[in-house]
């Protein structure tokens, strides 16, 4: 600080402090988009009853059609050889049905897989540019115009759902079920719900669906395991599952009830609470710098 007076130094420090607090004042309005603020009581959901599903895969076909993806002939979907391997949704299919052996009854269990549309989505919290958002009707959708393709959503998702088109050099997309956001906006049903011939998937207010599921379990305790997957997992999901066996046997991850982004958000907001910790660190370092300078000067004199 040889060329710099003590007053200048302090002045500059306080100027930085004030401008940083200014930034902090704006920030809360930007971060307001966190999902809990827009969770509607009337948000929709789907109840998947795996004991009803017959594994016809018509939902796969309807989904592709609804999203302008190559779907082929509906007759091809009767081919059961795809069940030899467990499949996951990817850029070519937003939903897939897998078949599991049932040791209890002998008849196979079919499980439709797609995005669960969490109430506290990890992808929405993680996305660097806020390309994911939880909508009022419960769906979690992706905004192509913002996405930069960093794939952090895929790291964050507890159900490992978002997929990426690795073989496109330009405009590769993050793809996942969007709960037929465009169709429901027009008042139509999601494509898979509409086509399902056995009503294995029920669309309705999430609150009502939880009640429906609870009643089913009460009325048919021998048919269902007493567990609605998605009712409380990771803070609740829009899509919920019922089954006659433990969900572990159906390849569902075992998850707690705490929301997936909870811990990281509280760490993050702790470090940045109104920018106090960074500004305090700045002031502390400034003080140390100033004291060390003066100490050295005194020693020289």
């Amino acid at each position, binding site marked *: 600080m040889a060329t710099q007076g003590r007053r200048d130094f302090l002045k500059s420090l306080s100027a930085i402090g004030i401008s940083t607090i200014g930034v902090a004042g704006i920030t809360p309005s930007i*971060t307001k988009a966190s999902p809990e603020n827009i969770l509607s009581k009337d948000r929709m959901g789907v109840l998947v009853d795996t004991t009803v599903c017959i594994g016809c895969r018509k939902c796969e076909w309807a989904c592709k059609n609804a999203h302008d993806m190559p779907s082929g002939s509906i007759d091809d979907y009767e081919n059961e050889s795809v069940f030899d391997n467990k499949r996951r949704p990817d850029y070519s299919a937003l939903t897939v049905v897998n078949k599991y052996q049932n040791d209890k009854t002998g008849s196979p269990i079919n499980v439709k897989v797609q995005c669960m549309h969490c109430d506290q989505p990890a992808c929405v919290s993680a996305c*660097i*540019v806020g390309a994911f958002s939880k909508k009022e009707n419960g769906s979690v959708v992706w905004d192509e115009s*913002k996405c930069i393709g*960093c794939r952090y959503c895929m*790291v964050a998702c507890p159900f490992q759902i978002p997929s990426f088109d690795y073989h*496109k050099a330009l405009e*590769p997309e993050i793809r996942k079920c969007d709960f037929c956001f465009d169709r429901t906006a027009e008042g139509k049903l999601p494509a898979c719900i509409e086509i399902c011939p056995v009503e294995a998937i029920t669309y309705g207010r999430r609150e009502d669906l939880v009640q429906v599921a609870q009643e089913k379990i009460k009325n048919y305790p021998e048919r269902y395991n007493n567990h609605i997957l998605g009712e409380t997992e990771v803070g609740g999901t829009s899509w919920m599952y019922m089954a006659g066996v433990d969900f572990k046997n159906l390849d569902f991850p075992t998850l707690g009830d705490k929301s997936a982004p909870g811990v990281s958000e509280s*760490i993050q907001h702790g470090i940045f609470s109104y920018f106090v910790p960074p500004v305090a660190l700045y002031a502390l*370092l400034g003080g140390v710098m100033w004291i060390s300078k003066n100490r050295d000067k005194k020693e020289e004199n």
Partner: protein
Amino acid sequence: MEMLMNPSQMTKKYFTPGVMLVSLIALNGLIFLALRLIFGVGAITNLDNQHPWGIWIGIDVAAGVALAAGGFTTAALGHIMHREEYEVVIRPALLTALLGYTFVALSVAIDLGRWYSIWHPLIFWNGNSVLFEVGICVMIYVSVLYIEFLPIVTKKFIGNVRFKGMLAKLNSPVDKLLRMLDRGLDKTMFIFIIAGVVLSCLHQSSLGTLMVIAGPKMHPLWQTPILPLLFLISAICVGFPMVIMESLIASRSFKLKPEMHVLSKLGSYIGPMLGIYLAFKVIDILIREAFVYLMVLSTESVMFSIEIIFGIILPMRLFFSKVVRESPLGIFIASMLVILGVVLNRLNNFIVAYNPPYATTSYFPSIGEISVTLGFVCIEVLMYRLIVKYFPIISIPEKAGVFKTKYSIQGSK
């Protein structure tokens, strides 16, 4: 105490057989990089929907940021705590940080599916996203590093602006501009120096928070809410070893006498720092009872043990020994252990610990990924060599030419 700082341009010729080899590896990396740009990320990497992040994030970015910590740790010691005897290592550390972060940014860019949209975080904000904070902090910090480096550039060209022909008229205005810039920077440099340290603390720790959101997908040996603290402490641990390693290699390469008096002193900080890091690591796995996973033989338990034993305990023991600290070979080996330990820690956190629920195969980097990673490291080395040839970065240890600097990089009266 009169310490000497005499940064000079290196005069040794640029190309040697070693440099030729490094250039070849760099070229190989650039070829794979071109393939990635033409055919997409999937064409040359082993990434898939289960393994969205590979070594370009785990090593190039996460380890890259940690290894560039020499910049802010030496700035904190030399400028903020005002320990003038460390001035000689600040410029080389600054240059390494500058190049390191530039290549971190490049590595992020090539890993992005839509690399041309890398500027989006500037306008689309998500305050909940850890990655957003890391991205913004790194962007600002890279700018700060360039500003910190600027006086070295202005100093070289002041009084030396000699355009030819038509442009000759511009000589005096450009010179005036440079002098103005130089004076302005001299007065305000402390703002940037402190900002650099604050920004480093923020994003070094937040890099650790990145994987917290992966929750149970991450192995319990590493998944902990104190990841940000562990990342920050380990970054501080690896700052000085990087400076020591580079200084010794540069001395050898440019046939200079190693600055052992400074390096040994720097080394005396590393042992206690590693001790603190080890304490946090141990207490963490004890409290979370994660140590039970060390009782079973698995890739994770082996990697964790290597990280702790060879990356923390062994170098800590070495750095506590005065004999080791004062021997160039000893301090070099101890520093390399810390560096490799931190690289392994980042690799473990981002790749080994990450167990996606539906993976049918495990991830191993492809030839293309390894080529690009090695290529980037080699380009960094080549650029470092080029810059120290044309700018005064490395100090020549001799008793003449006293050049005392105050808190700013540019010498001031």
